């Protein structure tokens, strides 16, 4: 298996990735040598001070929903009774590798953040929830390197699946049930692990906390962005796959155009025809995605999203209909098969995208796809069905001419696809899950 390519955008100093040339996994001594486990000149911000620093910094959840962490911390902290923290490292999304990279390579950064988050919400227990064996081993080794932590931290493992990282699936699995979502309400912040108000946060979100929790010297103002590495430009981890010569994991600043980041880091094979955003979740963008500013709100306003930061590049010769058909077939196979609207809806939408790819769909099929894409969002216990509807809706919105062409002629590229193979399209080969191979 080829090693994972990693890289940092030239405009920033890495905060989440390691500097170029750093040797493999970072142990406790190496993390401490970079300033870890000590906070800032005034130690760590705690409790409400930390929660306001996080809110001021505007840190959004990196698990896909981009929900402000400050709001979530405050919501859990305000609940009565004991609280629990779940650090979500399951990374069900096959086109994303960031959480597994962080856990395998920088477990102490994640644990430092875990302790910060646990203290901010007054958690009695914290769980690091993972499916990747190497990630689990790395965190266990890191825990063994540490003396007693102020909050007990446990590693919980589950079998990998697309839905196992959904927050209620994580809670249900830790409670001893199957790693499948439950319907809301309650949400975990109301009632989660052992019935306690529970903060479920993504590994990358948590990895930003040691920096934000770094307290200034006594007498100085709280300044978010202090801590490890220079203050300034906020960054996020982007997994780049698809038609780029150097697919891999990159640390990227917010605020620049998507196309520039993709071209500078992963490289391009020519002017991209479009992008599939947020892994399989946030749908397709046509070539206009190239100039959109990397910002959660900008992408949301365009009916798209940055989601978990996974970006799949459609090269000049890639067919967007074939891309949608592959992803829809994956949703059809990998939903949790619990909610009727989801297992029927994904099968029905996948039927149409497969028929388009096979050149046997008619206008009526496209109209049915359009109506499902509008009617089905919100009808599942989790957002998987919404993700599938995003793919359908965005295909019709962004690529109407291509859809139209597939009604007339058989597409040569789609003819090559095997939609029945149990593969995860656009997965990063270096981190492919055992049950899946890259397509």
């Amino acid at each position, binding site marked *: 298996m080829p090693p994972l390519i990693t890289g940092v955008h030239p405009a920033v100093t890495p905060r989440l990735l390691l500097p170029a040339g750093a040797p493999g996994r970072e142990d406790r001594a190496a993390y401490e040598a970079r300033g870890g486990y000590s906070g800032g000149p005034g130690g760590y911000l705690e409790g409400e001070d930390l929660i306001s620093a996080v809110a001021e910094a505007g840190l959004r959840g990196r698990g896909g929903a981009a929900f402000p962490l400050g709001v979530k911390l405050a919501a859990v902290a305000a609940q009565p009774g004991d609280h629990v923290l779940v650090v979500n490292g399951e990374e069900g999304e096959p086109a994303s590798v960031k959480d597994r990279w962080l856990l395998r390579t920088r477990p102490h950064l994640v644990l430092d953040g875990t302790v910060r988050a646990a203290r901010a919400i007054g958690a009695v227990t914290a769980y690091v929830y993972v499916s990747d064996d190497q990630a689990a081993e790395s965190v266990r080794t890191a825990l063994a390197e540490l003396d007693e932590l102020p909050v007990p931290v446990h*590693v*919980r493992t589950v079998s990998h699946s697309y839905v196992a990282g959904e927050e209620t699936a994580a809670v249900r699995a830790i409670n001893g049930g199957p790693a499948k979502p439950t319907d809301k309400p309650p949400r975990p912040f109301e009632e989660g692990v052992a019935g306690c108000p529970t903060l479920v946060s993504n590994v990358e979100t948590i990895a930003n906390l040691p920096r934000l929790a770094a307290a200034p010297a006594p007498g100085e103002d709280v300044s978010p962005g202090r801590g490890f590495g220079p203050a300034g430009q906020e960054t996020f981890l982007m997994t780049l796959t698809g038609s780029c010569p150097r697919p891999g994991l990159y640390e990227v600043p917010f605020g620049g155009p998507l196309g520039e980041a993709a071209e500078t880091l992963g490289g391009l094979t020519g002017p991209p025809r479009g992008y599939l955003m947020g892994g399989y979740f946030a749908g397709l963008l046509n070539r206009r995605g190239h100039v959109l500013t990397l910002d959660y709100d900008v992408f949301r306003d365009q009916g798209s999203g940055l989601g978990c930061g996974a970006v799949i590049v459609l090269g000049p010769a890639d067919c967007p209909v074939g891309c949608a058909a592959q992803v829809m077939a994956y949703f059809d196979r990998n939903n949790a098969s619990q909610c*009727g609207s989801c297992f029927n809806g994904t099968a029905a939408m996948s039927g149409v995208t497969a028929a388009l790819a096979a050149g046997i769909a008619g206008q009526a099929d496209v109209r049915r796809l359009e109506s499902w894409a509008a009617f089905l969002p919100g009808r599942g216990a989790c957002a998987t069905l919404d993700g599938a509807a995003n793919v359908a809706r965005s295909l019709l919105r962004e690529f109407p001419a291509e859809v139209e062409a597939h009604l007339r002629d058989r597409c040569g590229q789609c003819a090559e696809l095997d939609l029945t193979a149990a593969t995860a399209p656009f997965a990063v080969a270096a981190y492919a899950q055992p049950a899946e191979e890259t397509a």
Partner: protein
Amino acid sequence: MKIKLDRTLCDGFGKCAEHAPTVFSLDEWGYASLAGSAEVPADLEPQVRRAILDCPVDAILERLATPAGRLTPPAGELAPQPGPA
């Protein structure tokens, strides 16, 4: 009254929408979601109670106000969970 519909339990029998079509919306395969808010107006309560009783899989629940934190276990370590740790 306030209700919850558990879509992971619903088996698509459609009983609920027969009784209270404005509260329960069915998809084309017969599976239900709430049409609007979980808060049921007083005049629709009798129909919704019929739906709750008639749902063959008990997918519809009345959400009784639970005192917050009721399920909270005593402070300290949680009981160990099954599975690899």
